[in-house]
């Protein structure tokens, strides 16, 4: 089970802040592809993925129990 978090524009698009995927492992790229397919207009090319609160690479493997987050371009400050 993989937990994913949505923020800002993506939270509004998904209509939720969090959900869980019943998967044992997947790559970051696979997670982004899944999100783009599930939520048209997701815009995966501009989105980074954090795994356990750290930015991840597209090839990184997500394990069951990991906490993921989609990070659209930040605008703090």
């Amino acid at each position, binding site marked *: 089970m993989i937990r994913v978090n949505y*923020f800002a*524009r993506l939270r509004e698009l998904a209509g939720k802040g969090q959900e869980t995927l019943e998967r044992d492992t997947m790559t970051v790229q696979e997670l982004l592809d899944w999100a783009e397919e599930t939520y048209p207009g997701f815009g995966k090319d*501009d989105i980074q993925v954090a795994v356990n609160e750290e930015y991840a690479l597209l090839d990184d493997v997500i394990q069951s129990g990991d906490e993921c987050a989609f990070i*659209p371009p*930040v*605008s703090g*400050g």
Partner: protein
Amino acid sequence: MKPFEVIESPINPQQYADYVLHAGAGAVTLFTGHVREWTHGVRTVYLAYEAYVPMAEKKLAEIGAEMEAKWPGVKVAIAHRIGELHISDIAVVIAVSSSHRKAAYEANEYAIERIKEVVPIWKKEIWEDGEEWLGAQKKYPSKGEESI
């Protein structure tokens, strides 16, 4: 207070300046980023900030560690507010102390640049006739350039 934090209540900047002050500090720079009324000729009614709080606090602390590595001897505290912010409210405070002034200025400016690059915090502008999440520099280059 924590030296690197995301908070929902109004920011008291003096608290962070006091935190970084010590007997060896000859200079303290305190930066505050405020909600301003007009951006690109559009009147802001308020801003809504949202964060991935645990990761944002971790990233703020990492920025502090980067600063201490680049400018040995600086002491740093950073806080970012989330929620609804109105005109002139403080969104972010950065306090840096150092023995001499140059490091205090440079490290402080470095911090705000890094916050805008890596800390998972997002800002939505609410105008009288609409709203928009900011941050997609690729799509809105003029906004990216002109954010505080």
